[in-house]
């Protein structure tokens, strides 16, 4: 509909305006943007809905956690501690719906409050990985040449170590493990993945017709990279980020299990709680089951959402 001949407007569009519009038209030949199209298909996909509901509930609980949880995560209650012995941990009783944890604290409140910490670990680990990965991938994909070669060599080395081993070696090299070191270790593992993914997509964009068109119209290199290549190359990265949210939470739990988690006993985080509960599996398996179920559900939710996104963004599935 929009033609380059828009000269009847009060302020005639500049040459650049017209070129931009022209290039945008070329990029979106179908008339409806890929994003809008993908969202349409996402809404009709039951897998996406289940994933979104799980993730939505998780986020909701973590936002409302301080109001839902009747107690805080660190206080030990005398009425729970009275019956607390190495071979028996008190179960549900009035005021404490899930009973006590191994230290006489309210297990229910800890479960609720832990959703925040777990979300924090997942989101921060993914965001840090995403930011650095996108930076490296975009640089490599935009410049090519020796920049690309150097960056990808380093990325390949990091990719050639199994991710959990890499996370372990990073986390194990700190004198005092804390939540921050867990987040950093888990985040660094995903940096090369994001970088490779974005670089590949950027390279594909570089060869594409719409970028060729923009280049031949004389659009600045910076604008081509930022406006034409990067947004179009972000699809696979967004899918990967959703999946990484799940693996980050699982990897953090694994690090806690290996003794590389936060050493603070007051910290309530599902992975940490699950790891610490292993010692009490004979005494009170519920201490492990609830965090485990929470982790499995949340990981499942992000995975379902990620898979549905991948399907929705796949151009093969259009029409």
């Amino acid at each position, binding site marked *: 509909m929009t033609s380059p001949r828009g000269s009847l407007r009060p302020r005639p569009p500049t040459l650049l305006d017209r070129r931009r519009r022209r290039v945008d038209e070329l990029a979106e030949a179908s008339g409806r943007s890929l994003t809008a199209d993908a969202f349409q298909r996402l809404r009709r996909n039951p897998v996406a809905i289940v994933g979104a509901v799980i993730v939505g509930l998780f986020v909701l609980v973590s936002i409302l956690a301080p109001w839902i949880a009747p107690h805080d995560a660190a206080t030990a209650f005398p009425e729970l501690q009275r019956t607390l012995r190495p071979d028996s941990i008190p179960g549900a009783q009035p005021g404490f719906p899930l009973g006590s944890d191994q230290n006489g604290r309210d297990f229910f409140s800890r479960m609720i409050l832990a959703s925040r910490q777990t979300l924090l670990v997942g989101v921060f680990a993914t965001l840090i990985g995403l930011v650095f990965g996108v930076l490296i991938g975009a640089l490599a994909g935009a410049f090519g040449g020796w920049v690309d070669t150097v960056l990808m*060599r*380093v990325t*390949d*080395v*990091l990719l*050639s*170590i*199994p*991710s*959990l*081993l*890499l996370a*372990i*070696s*990073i986390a*194990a*090299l*700190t*004198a*005092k493990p804390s939540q921050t070191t867990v987040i950093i270790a888990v985040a660094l593992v995903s940096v090369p993945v994001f970088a490779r993914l974005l670089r590949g997509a950027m390279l594909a964009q570089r060869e594409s017709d719409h970028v060729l068109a923009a280049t031949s119209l004389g659009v600045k290199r910076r604008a081509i990279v930022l406006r034409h290549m990067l947004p179009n190359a972000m699809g696979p990265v967004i899918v990967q980020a959703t999946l990484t949210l*799940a693996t980050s939470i*699982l990897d953090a*739990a*694994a690090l806690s*299990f*290996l*003794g*590389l988690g936060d050493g603070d006993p007051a910290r309530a985080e599902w*992975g940490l709680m*699950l*790891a610490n509960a*292993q010692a009490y*599996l*004979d005494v009170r*398996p519920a201490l*492990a089951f609830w965090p*485990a179920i929470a*982790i*499995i*559900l949340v*990981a*499942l939710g992000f*995975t*379902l959402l990620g*898979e549905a996104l991948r399907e929705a963004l796949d151009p093969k599935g259009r029409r």
Partner: protein
Amino acid sequence: MLRFIVRRLIQVVPTLLLLSLLLFAWLRSLPGGPAAALLGDKATPEKIAQLNTVLGLDQPVPVQYVRFLGRAVTGDFGNSLITGEPVTTEIARALPATIELSIAALLLAVLLGIPLGYVAARYRGRPLDTTTVIATLVGVAVPVFFLGYLLKQFFAVDLGWFPPSGRQAVGIDATHVTGFAVLDGLLTREFDASWDALVHLVLPAIALATIPLAVIVRITRASVLDVMGSDFVRTANSKGLAPRIVRERHVLRNALLPVSTTIGLQTGLLLAGAVLTEKVFVWGGLGTLLAQAIERRDYPRLQAVVLLGALVYVIVNLLVDLSYAIIDPRVRVR
């Protein structure tokens, strides 16, 4: 072909060099260095200085790195800080246990995964398919160590069907030839020892196999579906070939290509999974060595095991690329 292999092998060298450099640099960039991390709360300046001299850390960093490399090339990764033994000896002793566990897990994952994925694809959209897909999604979402504990608690402690931990029962006096417990029993005709080792393998192998199994099922399913929709399968069907022949010769053979890549990738990842599984089942392999090294901050051992893990991963991927070139005539080896 040979030139391709040699070139790929040469490419492995810079990867390992860069990796060792990264590990090395990271180790030295810690505040106070490894000595401070090693001593933890007990660190005093004098103790750190003392330990640095013992570990050779008072030398300039480039000198340290060259020294480390020089020794690493000859297979000397230093002595474990826990046992005082050469790390290489420790690894050599623990290796068979991990390889045995990995083979068992891999067999389980491949032998179950490919048929399951194939059947799911054939009955696409039916309850069997849906159940399989959901199961694979859940399988990936379960923390491995928790699954290990569940299996152990239920099948070993509650039901008593399998032993809860270790590689062999205490009472069994097995002769060790190769270090592979099942194989040793067969070689020395101590079949009870073989059986005992096999029974010990079951639960850890299931725990370790879960993730590769789930991934193999999903890739097989997707790949079979992909091939079933292709033109040459339609041609084969329309020219009246028996459905069985189309399934076996056209669909399955072509669908297994991406699966072989996945199997390779998952094999390389087994060592990482073994760290968690071996800790749960007190297995005594590389994973146990690594877990101990982490707990006690045993850097020489940690460095060696991680480098070995990366080496295995890189080599397995090389083998996958090679097998690809053999299976698929379309892949040209340059």
